Structures are given as structure tokens and as C-alpha cells.
């Protein structure tokens, strides 16, 4: 079996195990390549119907194309889509115009997620995180419990083997389900290419620049690239030396920014 096939089957297995074991799950969705790969895998896992809601945390700093993509995908995939905005923080004036990126990310993403969790009381969230993205994500488990305070006790994680995951949680706790954990950025693109998964145009070069990772527009930089095909992206990735999230300002605002963000519930 090809490695991509193995990854696909493993992800499908994880998605189904989550759906069978949790009563009330949801899938945060950012519309990026990983997110769209997840939708694709969920469609396969559940024979064409995604039986749980998707959550888009709208920071109000979304690229216009992403919002258009959101509406297109909602119809195309028949999604049950929930859009969450931290209105309270926006009213307080939290924004990139006045605040640092770590604070804004925390308020408009992590805090918004907390608000959604409090409102919908999900016991499992499917995330698209991958081990290769970031050092703090390397030690994740496929099923990763979070305390009621949305914290991650990574020093004492349960063992995970032979397809047996942590599927029980206490009151107020939830589990992060991470079907893409073993995938690399290259694997995702190879899979997008193999399957023909629709993705936003911003990943492809326009006027000599393209986006490698998509976030809020004020803090997401495009890279210099003339690549406008999937083959080109795969080839470019095989030779690049810069990291995927180099263009995401909140990661680099201060030392260990990502660690701080993740400890507070960031994906």
C-alpha cells in the first residue's frame, strides 16, 4: 500500500472512531489546505455526508477570497457550518490596528473557540494539526485530552497504540482529535494533487507571489514564487529551507509565542 493510502486510511479510521465514541463533536475549519483535506477525508469516512457541524472562527480579518471560498464550500459540500466571532473583544477594540499579534490571535481565535465550546458543549474537536508544523505539535497524540480549562497536560499523556485512543472525558473536558498528525506539508499537497481537492486560489502565484499558509490578512505574508500548479508546489517544497509558518507573524512575535498560544488553547 502506498504511504499516502496508509495516511488516508489512518485518518478515516480516526474520524470514524471519534464519531462513534463522542456524543457531540465538531470540526473547526479554517479553509486552508489542511482544513480542506480534512473535509475531503470526512466525506470519505462517512460515505459522503459529514455528520457533525463545522466551525469557522471568523477573526473579522479574513481574506475576502477565504470568505467567498467559505460560502462556496458550504453549498458544495453541504456543510452544517457555524461561524463564530468574538464580538465582545471586537467591541473592546481588540484588533491588529492597536494590539500585538499574539494578543489578537488569542482573543479572536482561542477565546472565540472557548466561547463556542461553552455555547455548544462539544466533547470532541477535530483539528487539522500536523506534527511537522511546529515543535509543540510534534508530541501530540491522535486523541489528545484537554482539561475543562482547555489546557493540555503533555507531560502525562496516555499511551496510544494499536488504534486504541483516549475516548472518555470528564465533565467540561474535551478531546482534540487529530487525524492529520502524521502527515507532512508535502503529504498534504501530494494528496490534494492525487485527489483533486478544490483549494483557494491564494496558494498559487499571482504577480510573482503566493501564500504558503493562510491566516489573518494583516499578519500573513505571501512568499516570492511563480508557482501556479500543484506539481510546482510539490517541487518547490522539496527544495525549500524556510518553514511553512514563516509567514505567520503571531508565531514569531516573541520567543516561544507558539508554546504560549497553544498552552492557552490555540490549535
Amino acid at each position, binding site marked *: *500500500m*502506498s*504511504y*499516502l*493510502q*496508509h495516511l488516508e*486510511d489512518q485518518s*478515516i*479510521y480516526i474520524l*470514524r*472512531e471519534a*464519531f462513534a465514541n463522542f456524543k457531540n463533536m465538531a470540526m473547526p475549519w479554517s479553509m486552508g489546505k489542511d482544513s480542506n483535506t480534512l473535509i475531503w477525508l470526512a*466525506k*470519505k*469516512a*462517512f*460515505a*459522503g*455526508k459529514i455528520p457533525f457541524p463545522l466551525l469557522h472562527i471568523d477573526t473579522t480579518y479574513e*481574506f*475576502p*477570497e477565504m470568505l*467567498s*471560498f467559505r*460560502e*462556496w*464550500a458550504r453549498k458544495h459540500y453541504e456543510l452544517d457550518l457555524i461561524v463564530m466571532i468574538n464580538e465582545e473583544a471586537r467591541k473592546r477594540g481588540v484588533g*491588529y490596528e492597536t494590539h500585538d499579534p499574539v494578543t489578537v490571535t488569542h482573543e479572536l481565535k482561542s477565546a472565540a473557540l472557548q466561547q463556542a465550546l461553552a455555547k455548544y458543549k462539544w466533547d470532541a474537536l477535530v483539528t487539522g494539526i500536523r*506534527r511537522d508544523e511546529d*515543535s509543540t505539535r*510534534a*508530541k501530540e*497524540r491522535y486523541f489528545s485530552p484537554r482539561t475543562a480549562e482547555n489546557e493540555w497536560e*503533555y*507531560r502525562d499523556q496516555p*499511551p*496510544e*497504540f*494499536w*488504534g*486504541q485512543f*483516549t475516548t*472518555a*472525558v470528564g465533565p467540561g473536558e474535551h478531546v482534540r482529535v487529530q487525524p492529520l498528525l*502524521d502527515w507532512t506539508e508535502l503529504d498534504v499537497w501530494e494528496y*490534494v*494533487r*492525487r*485527489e*483533486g481537492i*478544490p*483549494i*483557494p*486560489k491564494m496558494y*498559487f502565484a499571482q504577480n510573482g507571489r503566493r501564500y504558503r499558509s493562510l491566516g489573518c*490578512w*494583516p499578519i500573513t505574508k505571501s512568499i516570492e514564487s511563480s508557482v501556479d500548479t*500543484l506539481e510546482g508546489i*510539490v517541487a518547490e517544497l522539496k527544495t525549500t*529551507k524556510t518553514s511553512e509558518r514563516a509567514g505567520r507573524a503571531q508565531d514569531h512575535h516573541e520567543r516561544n509565542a507558539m508554546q504560549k498560544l497553544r498552552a492557552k488553547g490555540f490549535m
Partner: protein
Amino acid sequence: MPPAPKAVSKDYVPVFFPKRQGGAGAAGGAEEARTSIVVVGHVDHGKSTLIGRLLADTGSLPEGKLEAAEKASREEGMPLEYAFLLDALLEEQAQNITIDTTRIGFRYEGQSFEIIDAPGHREFIKNMVTGAAAAEEAVLLIDAKEGCKEQTRRHGLLLSLLGVSQVIVAVNKMDLVGWDQARFRELEKEIREYLGGLKIIPREVIPISAREGATVMRRDSKNLGWWKGPTLLEALVASRAKKPSGDEGPLRFSVQDVYRFDERRVVAGKLESGTIQVGDPVVFFPDRKTSRVKTIETWGDNQASTRVGTGRCVAVTLEEQIFVERGHVGSLPDHPPVESREVRARIFWLDAEPLRLQAPVTLRLGTQSVETRLVAIDRVVDADKLEAVNEAREEVGRFEVAEVRLRCRRPLVYDAHDQVAATGRFALQRGSRIGGGGIIIFAEYSLSLAKAVKGEHLTWTEGRVTSEARAAHFGHEGAIVWLTGLSGSGKSTIAVALESLLFRRGIGSMILDGDNLRHGLCADLGFSIEDRAENIRRAGEVAKLMAESGLVVISSLISPLRKEREAVRASSHSAGLSFAEVYIDAPIEACEKRDPRGLYQKARKGEIRGFTGIDSPYEKPENPDLILHTDKESVEDSVAKLLRHVLGLVQLKEKDQESAGGPGGQI
């Protein structure tokens, strides 16, 4: 802040690519198979150096890494230290977090490998288990100078437990022992013997020097000219080529869920072993209902699949509307799994709180989840010394390995680990936390498929009185003594005598007589082959219930067919009951001469058709627990022999008798 991006058009459509031609299996990158390898061994025996060397020699390091390490080593006035390479790589990948497993890929000779780096320190065994359980191959490293150490053995033991049987041993640091062949052979002998005890036959034992780069990728004809075997990488590539896909194994389809999101009823699950095809008659255990596969559902694929193989997660629809749910296991009728409440396993325990006898835990195997109790600890292996600890144990402690017996609340569907690995291993969960796992070391396969269960949505109810408590109360265990033999061989005579002898000893016993059953429970059955089989099945089920209640059941039925007797034996064992097949052996001439009921005479005249021994076959037991030659010995002698055997079966062990405090002493 950059300027706000421009709006996009209203009729937005994202980038669509055609589905790539060629699909899975096409050459290059993630589209090939990948072998996962775990490198284990005692601390300081050269794990990091070997991984660094593998990456460097195969050109798998990111650009500039090798040069940077060379520069750093030069500045220190040292030769290149390959371990630094790995450490630098890991540092970059994991910064200050080193306790978890990491995956590093490399390619050689057109094949992809992935090293799962599992830390081997004692306190991190939990992570090592998580890492090594995912590996298909293991490289066990031994320092040529130090030889086998405690962790070498412990890791060997864990590999055998995790079912990683594909092992290559690398005797490292050969340069430190002057490339001495005699030393290598001595270590080879030692490790082969040790692993042999764990039933692991290493595919290769290879002399290497990771630091010098000898026999990792390149041969070292100067120092290791005497080595004619493969290099480490050659051995890894060879094993890759030999690896079976699992498609050849028997079908085991673990049902994850049944979806009814639209008009379809989709059975979703994973192919743990074997292949599934449209049209296949699939029997779903534990209910044993059968249905043909109607379709294999694929989403996003233009062409429908008609056959898929091991490892795939599939969704199928069925021809017949049978009851199937999560936890069921699909199989083909000719090679079914075992269905039993009894599990014999070798387990490892990882939780700080020990696993105690009789304490409830959840056994999770595939998608099955069953309440279980540890009912016996046969042997505990001290992982440090790797010796069996013989004293009676009440618990399995942290990081201990033990051979145990578990009893489930309801039947578990499984295989022996050496038959089908994926359905022969399980995790044990206490509360909401996985605390250990194990592999199943024994499975009693039945020669025939038991009847399908017709009812739906059935549950198992278990009372609070355990079989141990029952045995303690009565002072003996329940059991089934199955007498088989020709009509007139003396079954009834012996059964009657045994029953009264047992009863006088305070042992509850009861005869189950074939003819008597036919007056009641089996009154609807005749003597056709089907009816006779059904007669035996019912007798077996009744015997099982009575024995479970604590009685010693003496069944007295001709039961001529081996297959049927074996089915009763397997079904008794799966309920955790002792079963003794006793062959009442008398030649047909002797039986015919006795002819207590005049039946042989009638059969000879043709008044009875299908009479066993005359015009219907009797299959002698192949391995009976006891044979009684009633034509050669007296009834008293036969019964005395049988009594001894039965007492051995049902008598409680000394310890149990003390706790029983009941009539146990009377036996």
C-alpha cells in the same frame, strides 16, 4: 499594517484540479510504501549514532546539516560525531521536548523508510510502547564490547510483546573490539538464544560500526573482510521486499459504525486482515449472521471498487438486512475467528497503580470493548532480570509483563496473535485511561461454524456471583464429563456409577442422558444427520449452563461425530469450563453381544435405519482425555479411573479451599 486586500468576484469558484491520473501506487514521494523502523537497545550502545549515520549515508539530511556538524566537530578537534547530527535535527524539530516519539524519514535504493525514535529510558517506556507499537521492523543494537545488557533484554521482551517480530540485530562498535570475528560470533550466539526464548528469530545479526560507517551502507573490506552477509541497509531493503501485504490472511473486518445518513445503510469498518469483495458471504461475529456484500461505497472516486485489501478503511452495503453494529467482526465462513469469554494473554502494564486480580478493566480489541476481569496470573516475568517469578501473585505491577487469564462479561471475538496479529492484540483500560495491553497467546479454533443468532439487540446479563465464588461455595468447580462411545459400550452404566460416587463425596453432579433429552428438550428431533447434530448442540448448551451453575455434568450420548464433539469442547472452553472427553471404548462385536436394549438386533434386521456402527459412522476421538476399555476391565475399575480424573478436574486448589471454608475438605 498592510493595506486591506481587495474583494473577489461574486461567482467565486476555487481552484479545481482534475483527479490525478495513475493514482495510488505511482512512483515517487508519498505514493510509495514506507517501512517504519524502531531502533532500540541499551543506553549508550549507539542508537543516535546509528540513526545519524543512516541519514548521512543515505543523503537524507537537510542541506547544510552535515557540513555544520563537520565544522562543529573540527572546531572541537574531534572526528565527525554522527550522534550530533541526530541531536541537532531533533533539537530543531522538538526543541526542549525530547520525551516523545519522533519520526524521521529516509530513502535507500528507491525505498522509503521512517525511523520512529523511541526513547528507551525506563520512565519513558510508555512512550516507547507508543512508538514501537507502530513499527513494522526493529533494529536491536548491542555494544560489541559491553555485550547484552539489561535494557537490551528488556527491549527484546517488549518487541516480542508488541508483536514486532521482524528484528535485525546490529552488533555495534566492532572497531572497539578490534573487528574481532570470535567476539561477534559469541555475541551472536548469546542474542540468538535470548531472542529464541521470546520466539523471535532475528533475520540477520550484523557486525557494524556506526561511527566508522562499517556495514551500515558501505562494506568495510579492510576491517570486516570476513563478513559475507548483508549490510544493515541491504537487510532492511530485503525485508521490505519480503513483507506480506496481509491480503493473504483470513478476512477480519472490524465494524466501526453503521451509518444511515440517507437511504443507504452503510457498514463502515477497517480491514484488519484479508480482502473483501463484492459478492462475498460475510459472517458477522459474535452473532454469526451472514450477508453478501452488495457494494463497496467510495466517495470522491469515479470508479467503484469491487475488491479492497488489508489496512483499508471501507464502507460497504449488504444484500441482506441483518443486524450489524460497532464491535462486530466480519469474516468469511471458512476461516472464522474465535469467540470466547476466556482470554489467555501475555500482557504489559504501564500504569502506576497495579492491575489486581478480579478488578474490573475494559478490554479493547479492534472496535470491541468488553468488561473484563483478571482471573489468574500464571507467570510474571521480571523485566529487569527477565526471569519468571514463580511466587503466587495477586497483581501485575507497573512495567511488569505477565502471562494471565482474563474473563470477559460477554464473548470476545479474537485470534491468536501468531495467526492474525491485528485481532490478536488489545489494550486494557481502567476508568478512562489506557493502562496496558497484551497479545493473545492461545486461541481454540472451532472446526465448524456455530449457529447464527436469530435475535437482534441482545445483551449479556451477568449476575454478581462469579464462577470463583460459586466454586468456593460448593467446594468444587463445575465441569463437563462427556462420555462418547457406541451404543452398548457402557456409557450409561458408568455415568450412573460416577454420579453416585461424586454425590457421596459432596460433589453436585447430574447425568445428561441422550434418550432422556429426546423426551423433552429434543422431542422435535429425529435421527437425520442435521437432527443428530442439533441434538448434540442442545445437549452441549444444556451441559454448559448446568456446569456454569456449579455442577459436574456427566453427559451420556453416542455423539458419533468428531466435529460436533469438538464444537462442544470449544464452546465449553470459551465459557471458561473444564471439559473432559471420555472415550468408552468397546469393540462393536462386544457391544452387539451385550445389546442391552436389543437395538443392534433391530438394526441388523433393518428395523432401525442409520444406526451408529451398523449403517452410520462412528468417529473415534483423536485425543480423548481418557479412554476406558470396558471390554477388558471391570465396571469398578473403569469408574475408579474416571473418578480420579474427574476429581483432578474439579477439586479446588489448597488456597481456594481455605478461603472457601465450606465442604471442600470432604473431597
